[in-house]
């Protein structure tokens, strides 16, 4: 499929190229393209040059489809899928392979530290890329689940800004198995 090239300029004045079909994964870019303001470069003052390639990589993978990425982010194939009489097993297998492949890609794609996660989340928010925003939000949530506030702070490099008086008034909620798992 031939496609028009679009140029994006990062906050630190570096220009990147992206196919129009891929760019349409972003609602913001889609609106600009459809608005017909395509002469020249689209400036993205909120996205830096170390994040923009990452965003483009996502758009290339998901260009043109905004829906399916959400399905993957929410856990992939529906386990309870009802088996209908004219159910195509081959088609289902191909679908499963496709989903597995995409999950694997996402796993590798999402392998970065909390600083990149933060920037990517804001970029996805700014560019209205729902699938990517869901993906990053889910990653952040997974860095919270099953952890103590101390462990969460460490994961996100946050300092507690509560006063000692507030700490004094604390009610404690404890996980019985913290002893064994807290420090793995």
């Amino acid at each position, binding site marked *: 499929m031939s496609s028009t090239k679009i140029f994006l300029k990062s906050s630190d004045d570096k220009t990147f190229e992206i196919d129009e079909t891929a760019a349409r994964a972003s609602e913001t870019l889609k609106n600009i393209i459809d608005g017909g303001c395509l002469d020249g470069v689209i400036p993205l003052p909120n996205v830096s040059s170390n994040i923009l390639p990452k965003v483009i990589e996502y758009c290339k993978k998901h260009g043109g489809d905004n829906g399916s990425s959400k399905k993957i982010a929410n856990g992939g194939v529906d386990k309870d899928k009802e088996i209908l009489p004219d159910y195509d097993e081959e088609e289902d297998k191909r679908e499963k392979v496709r989903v597995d492949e995409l999950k694997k890609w996402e796993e590798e794609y999402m392998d970065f530290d*909390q600083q990149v996660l*933060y920037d990517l*989340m*804001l970029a996805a*928010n700014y560019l209205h890329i729902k699938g990517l*925003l869901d993906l990053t*939000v*889910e990653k*952040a*949530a997974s860095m*919270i*689940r*099953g*952890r*103590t*506030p*101390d462990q*969460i*702070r460490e994961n*996100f*490099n*946050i*300092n*507690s*800004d*509560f*006063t000692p*008086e*507030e*700490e004094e*008034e*604390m*009610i*404690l*909620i*404890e*996980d*019985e*198995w*913290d*002893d064994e798992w*807290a420090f793995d």
Partner: protein
Amino acid sequence: MASRNSAVFMREVGSSSSPNREMKMADHSRWSELPNHITEMIVNRLGFPDIIRFGAVCRSWRSVYTEVRRPRYHPMVLYEYNLQKGTFGFYSFEDKKVYWINVRDGYQSRHCVGSCESWLVLSSPYLRNYFLLNPFTGARVECPYVNRPDVDLFTKVILLDSPIDLTTKETNYYCTVVALNLFSTELNICRLGDARWNVVLKLDREHFLGCLVYFKNKIYTLSTSGELWIISLSGPMLRATVEKVLVQINLTIGLEFQKECYLVEAEDYLLMVIRIKRKSTKKTVRFVIFKLVQNPGEYKWIREYNLPDDRALFLGRLCSRIVSTTEYGGLQENSIYFTDDKLLHKARVSEYPETGIYNIRSGIITPYHSFDLYPFDLPHIWITPSV
């Protein structure tokens, strides 16, 4: 011991000392400055108790946690509670784990007399008073003073509203509280802002069966003579209007059995669940479910042989609730999760309080936890966390 840092704040309800002091903004992580709508997206993906821990990370996350409160979470079992020490142990069906909450100074309370969603109704005998406590937030709301010697003797308490206004987070003084006394002969009512409790109904020759439920803006209870009492409250003085109807049920049980009645609000219907126990062993053998059907001028209990699709029933003397097994993971559908919480006001009892899951189709009873929840002598209470 587990880390003491896994903590939540106690939120004083109706407290005037709101901490308005200067906030130190030293060395903030960018994560605490995330746009609120994104932080909310993260919070919305967290269950219990992760959400409480999220709220204990930093001030900015705490403010989002306070804003984005979802009304209720997965039902849990409160299986250990030392009110004097302020210790609560919960078992979650969702992740099959046990959680603990410790409150520093305890509550000077002897008995838990009721539970409603996330609220426990506790008695403070020396003050001749009852108070409501949400152990998950530490929110505490006092009930009006009871100027009577049998203050200790409420055995069933229900809340008709939320005791906390979810918008202002202040006490909802219009929240109505309804209570049955020990002998189930009196219906006591108050609003949290009232000066005292009022006895609105008093029975002489019979008594209520200890079940009390709020369903479609009316209070329902059963009396020993088999009458269904439908009570409407109206006006600023909460005047009670009573409709009494004799509704027959078609159920014969053998002499070696005894029955206990529960009324349950099940979405659009009112259910009466009858628990049949063997007299000799005091063990539950079976449950029978009836649904209240109202035709013009006539009420009927219709036998139900199954729960609606993907539903499970939590059944207890203090509170019962029907839940969707699709919405809440880890539950078996068409099953009754039951406990024996009627002995609560006796503190610790010698007999082992019965608990289990009753499969409605097969009639088989299985335990709901794979290990024993220690200690074994406290009646389990259903509780639905909300923060």
